């Protein structure tokens, strides 16, 4: 179980919640509401004393064990070396004892096998997102935090990633940060809604997508059209 007790750091104020084994989470919130800060605190990229895994402070777990517990996948791929290839990057995500066939399988599933020998820096933003997801699957931590995994993808790839997450066989527990309400709704994970660094809602997906609550959070910016949540561009304020 991953649990956060009264976390206050940077923009975050008194954030508390618990995520049981086998439960997934969607983190929602406006720009600058602290979603990424929370994710980075969860995996100790921002040191804090308030994040616990199985009752132990995440900072007290030895680094190599911590890496098995929690992994964070940023929105953008950050690679310094201009010649490091896609294959090299994926190898760096594998730990000893991983099945080498897994790498080929994932390259195939995400349809990026033709990029295997390309330098990571030459990838488009969508291809980078797919590579990040492929890396996270190989890493296979107990909890994987995906920060806006579908933001740079085309429609077909969004569906592919949705199915991959829904199917659930590639990740253990996932925490998704997204602005895509439709994705959040279809995945059906528990929802944590952040507003200016505080938790405004934490509960089941069904409760969050209640029309009155939705309007409270997003005003008229979101419309429910036949079970699909779409952005209302004609919204008049």
């Amino acid at each position, binding site marked *: 179980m991953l649990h956060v007790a009264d976390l206050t750091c940077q923009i975050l104020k008194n954030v508390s919640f618990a995520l049981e084994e086998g439960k997934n989470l969607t983190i929602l919130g406006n720009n600058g509401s602290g979603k990424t800060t929370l994710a980075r605190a969860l*995996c*100790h*990229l921002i040191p804090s004393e308030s994040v616990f895994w199985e009752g132990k402070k995440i900072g007290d777990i030895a*680094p*190599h*064990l*911590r*890496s*098995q517990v929690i*992994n*964070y996948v*940023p929105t953008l791929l*950050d*690679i*310094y*070396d*201009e*010649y*490091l*290839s896609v294959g*090299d*990057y994926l190898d*760096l*995500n594998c730990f000893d004892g991983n099945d080498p066939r897994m790498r080929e399988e994932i390259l195939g599933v995400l349809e990026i096998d033709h990029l295997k020998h390309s330098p990571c820096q030459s990838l488009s933003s969508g291809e980078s997102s797919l590579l990040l997801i492929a890396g996270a699957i190989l*890493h296979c931590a107990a909890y994987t935090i995906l920060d806006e995994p579908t933001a740079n993808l085309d429609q077909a790839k969004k569906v592919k990633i949705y199915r991959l997450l829904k199917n659930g066989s590639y990740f253990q527990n996932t925490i998704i940060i997204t602005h895509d309400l439709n994705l959040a709704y279809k995945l059906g994970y528990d929802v944590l809604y952040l507003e200016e660094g505080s938790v405004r809602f934490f509960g089941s997906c069904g409760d969050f997508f209640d029309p009155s609550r939705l309007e409270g959070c997003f005003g008229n910016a979101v419309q429910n059209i036949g079970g699909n949540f779409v952005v209302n561009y004609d919204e008049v304020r």
Partner: protein
Amino acid sequence: MKYVSLILSLAVLVIAPFFGEITLNIQEILNPASSSSMLFWEIRSPRVIIAFCSGAILSLAGLVFQSIFRNPLTTPFTLGVASGATLGTALAIVFFGGLLFWQYALSFFGALLTVIVLFLLSRSLKSAQTSSLLLVGIALSFFYSAALMVLYYLSDFEQSYSIVRFTMGSLNIVGFDTAYPILIVSLLFLVSILWQRKPLRLLLTSLDFTFLKGVHVTRLVMSLLLITSLAVAVCVSVVGPIGFVGLIVPHIIKLLYRRSSDTLILPTFFYGGIFLVACDLVARNLGAASDIPIGVVTSFIGGPFFIYLILHRQKGSR
């Protein structure tokens, strides 16, 4: 291409001791009583070894520092390590009459002190904030330069001249006694960097990624920094601050091999050594009354070649 350059490099290494201001009598080399033998074994051979080891250390140090700081302009010189060593030597020249022992000792001490200062400051900086450390290094360099100016002001004409010659870098070394320490240090340095190859490869992605893969980033960066700075300190205390090698050789190797930096440890070490041996060969044979300072030659040869490679790459990628 690879084999051609390897054979050419080995050839440079082998012929280097045979050429110089004074022509050697090749038959006499194995005759211990002759002056040719003395020149070959006591002066030229140690000089080639020192040139090779210094070039290798400075180049590999450049590669490691560029990877750690994720900045293509970083070398141990930018961090103030070399400036610390230079100041130490200048102190020895002014206050200890230029005795060789004190030159080596204070130069080494200057470099070591810089590393310790950087290390202590880095602990109060937030972990993995390598750019702050780089800025501290640059600030230290300016501080050392100012101190060096004070020493120029205090010194007489002869002392000033010695300091200037040292800052240009020099491979004028006699006997194998000076060559052994730097030879051993360069090999130890190579082995320890090869040993850290896998974590180094993680650093080529990003510090966050390295952290998330379960590596203690601060500890890794600090140990690499310490090992590299110590090797550079030994090198600078013997041959002076030979700039530019550490900056350009890693880039030249990257442009030629087009592989990620962690796979270039051996080529950078080897060709860095060869580069300095070749530059020294030129410096010794241009026919001037005395050797041209090695730092001048490295910049004259390396600079244009470097610019050529960068322009060439731009054309290729468009």
